[in-house]
């Protein structure tokens, strides 16, 4: 394909005064209705984005504390130790993280990162801000439901955070909350966790209904299914996953809440003993039932984390290679296949529960099958680079970084999908390394790409390019130094949930024991700790850049990336109602460098030529 890029540096549009677009006849709403009780999808998107970024940072700090404890078991946390003791009391006596506290940090790190950080950022924040713009809609279908969704999310987050400060501390049974552990640990933190989860699930359900209805109902005239930007497809499938996979976990959450508060035995087996004492319960329940209901959500959740991120990557790559995305239709069918298959692979998390061979074979087969469409998506991304005149900027760097990182994460997952290897690797650091490669340098890199990419649409200014690149290269380096050694630790048999970082099983402690952890494996804990600290420091340029650029970034026009999709055809920032005129769509999503066109990008649509265009005759479906 011949590339016809005409000018490399972004062209400058004349700067229109964007002060009061479309607000001419509206009076300016007050603070509460504008920022707290807003029904505007863009404000809600920003609310989600800001809150979830804060939670990501909070979850990261929990992880740093845990890494300290792993690398230096029993040594008081430097700097933060006294603060911890003051805030959390006994569990952090002397600034030392007790095993109970370590457990609750572990459980809450997972919960916060997944349910309060990445999902709200990837799905709710980007989805809310971008999807209605991309499909040419004035807002979401149900703006007030949208607001309720954010409030439920915020409340759920508040419940989770509050649970740290109750007697007994936050939930300690891991982010998976396996019963009977989750019921027998003597803390109310688990009840808080469950109530928080019910709120978060409610929020996701409201969001999912809204997204699906919006994408189906509010596409502008001419925006047929096969003209949807792939990002919208990814959000569409994600919304369906949330809609149908989350409720069983909500059901399970209610049942476990009954176990914890009403004394039932849904997940408690007959004859359960804790500390040598028979538990005063009727018994008759099934711990495995919890695992099934949990993983029925838990596995599709992985795709909730990754699909919107892939959507962002596709948008950024198409925009910066200045050519159509390779295999748009394959991408669409692949994402549908992934969404469908994600519902029937869940029990590959449970090989170690003593499954029979027939059912294990079934789940191994579906697990291997689902990797096919995933690989097709990744392949399309790689092939899209071929022959493009690639424009390197911060969003593109993060998108390019996503490709190998997600590749590593995905491919290391294959051995885990096969029962024979999984029995060996289950619950070791190998697992941690695998899914963090998918989510941390994978999804979160894509989310960074999205932040840098859409920032100019939100604020009318670009984020600083130099510090963006510093942020990228440092993050890339330290992410890998953090997670790569964990593969090694895991293969050597280091278990994932021990608060002393495997010290008790080291050659130093038990010399001569078969499979004791060699000293160099234990030493890697120190490497990971300092790499993680550096990773944290590497985020400082991003945080400063984000806030500084709101008021001091380079001013740009409505379409600084010279993109084709509709989100860039609105005024900046988009006014209430998004489009000043009704849009009519006449082109596919990625018509870059069309031969014969005057520019190297052909926008999907523009204002209707006939103002009376109310004819939706375009053949949808």
């Amino acid at each position, binding site marked *: 394909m011949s590339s016809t890029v005409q000018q490399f540096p972004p062209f400058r549009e004349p700067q229109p005064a964007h002060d009061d677009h479309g607000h001419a006849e509206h009076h300016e709403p007050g603070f509460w209705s504008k920022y707290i009780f807003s029904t505007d999808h863009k404000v809600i998107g920003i609310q989600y984005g800001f809150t979830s970024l804060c939670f990501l940072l909070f979850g990261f700090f929990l992880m740093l504390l845990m890494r300290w404890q792993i690398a230096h078991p029993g040594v008081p946390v430097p700097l933060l130790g006294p603060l911890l003791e003051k805030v959390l009391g006994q569990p952090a006596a002397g600034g030392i993280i007790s095993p109970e506290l370590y457990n609750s940090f572990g459980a809450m790190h997972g919960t916060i990162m997944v349910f309060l950080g990445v999902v709200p950022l990837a799905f709710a924040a980007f989805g809310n801000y971008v999807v209605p713009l991309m499909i040419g809609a004035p807002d979401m279908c149900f703006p007030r439901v949208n607001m309720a969704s954010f409030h439920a999310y915020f409340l759920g987050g508040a419940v989770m955070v509050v649970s740290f400060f109750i007697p007994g501390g936050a939930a300690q049974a891991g982010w998976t909350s396996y019963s009977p552990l989750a019921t027998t640990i003597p803390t109310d933190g688990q009840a808080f966790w469950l109530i928080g989860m019910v709120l978060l699930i409610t929020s996701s359900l409201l969001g999912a209904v809204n997204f699906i209805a919006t994408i189906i109902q509010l596409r502008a005239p001419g925006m047929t299914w096969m003209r949807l930007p792939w990002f919208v497809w990814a959000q569409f499938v994600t919304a*369906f996953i949330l809609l149908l996979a989350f409720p069983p976990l909500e059901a399970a959450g209610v049942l476990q809440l009954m176990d914890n508060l009403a004394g039932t035995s849904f997940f408690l087996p007959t004859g359960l003993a804790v500390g040598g004492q028979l538990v005063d319960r009727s018994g008759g*329940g099934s711990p495995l*039932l919890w695992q*099934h*209901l949990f993983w029925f959500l838990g596995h599709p959740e992985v795709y909730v984390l990754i699909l919107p991120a892939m959507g962002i990557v596709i948008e950024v790559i198409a925009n910066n290679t200045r050519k159509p995305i390779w295999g748009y239709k394959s991408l669409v069918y692949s994402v549908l296949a992934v969404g469908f298959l994600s519902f*029937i692979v869940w*029990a590959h998390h449970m090989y170690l529960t*003593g499954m029979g061979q027939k059912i294990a074979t079934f789940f191994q087969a579906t697990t291997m099958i689902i990797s096919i469409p995933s690989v097709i998506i990744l392949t399309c991304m790689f092939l899209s680079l071929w022959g493009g005149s690639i424009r390197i900027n911060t969003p593109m760097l993060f998108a390019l970084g996503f490709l190998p990182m997600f590749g590593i994460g995905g491919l290391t997952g294959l051995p885990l999908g096969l029962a024979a290897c999984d029995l060996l690797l289950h619950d070791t650091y190998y697992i941690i390394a695998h899914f963090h490669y998918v989510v941390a340098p994978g999804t979160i890199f894509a989310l960074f790409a999205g932040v840098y990419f859409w920032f100019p649409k939100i604020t009318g200014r670009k984020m600083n390019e130099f510090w963006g690149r510093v942020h990228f290269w440092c993050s890339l380096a330290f992410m890998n130094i953090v997670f790569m050694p964990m593969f090694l630790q895991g293969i050597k048999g280091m278990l994932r949930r021990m608060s002393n970082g495997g010290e008790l099983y080291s050659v130093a402690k038990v010399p001569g024991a078969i499979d004791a952890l060699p000293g160099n494996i234990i030493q890697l804990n120190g490497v990971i700790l300092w790499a993680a600290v550096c990773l944290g420091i590497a985020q400082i340029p991003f945080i400063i850049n984000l806030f500084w650029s709101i008021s001091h970034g380079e001013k740009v026009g409505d379409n600084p990336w010279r993109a084709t999709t509709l989100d860039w055809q609105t005024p900046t920032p988009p006014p209430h109602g998004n489009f000043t005129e009704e849009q009519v769509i006449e082109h596919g999503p990625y018509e870059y460098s069309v031969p014969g066109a005057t520019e190297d990008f052909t926008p999907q649509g523009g204002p209707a030529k006939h103002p009376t265009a109310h004819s939706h005759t375009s053949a949808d479906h």
Partner: protein
Amino acid sequence: MSESEKPVSLQSYIRLCGVVFLVVLCTTSAMIATSFAHIGDGWTLKVALILAIAVVNAFLVAGYLMHLLSEKKLIYTVLVFTLFFFIGLMGLTMWAMNDFPTGTAVH
């Protein structure tokens, strides 16, 4: 409104509802009768029969009261997927719970 092509009269709805209520009355009685009757040795056959009648009952409510019988294709599509995943959830879980290497289910 989607149903505007149909003749709209309150009487026709009342007639429809009368029929539906009569059938619900019959099916409910049939379920109760089955429950107390002596059919088969244990509960298995009875449970199957009762559930079958319940499905008929549910079909009535969904089909006529929720006018699902004359609904749009899009809604059918959504419901078919939902039903499929529901069956997957229940079926695969049941299968997993009953497929243990030793032959004795662990609960």
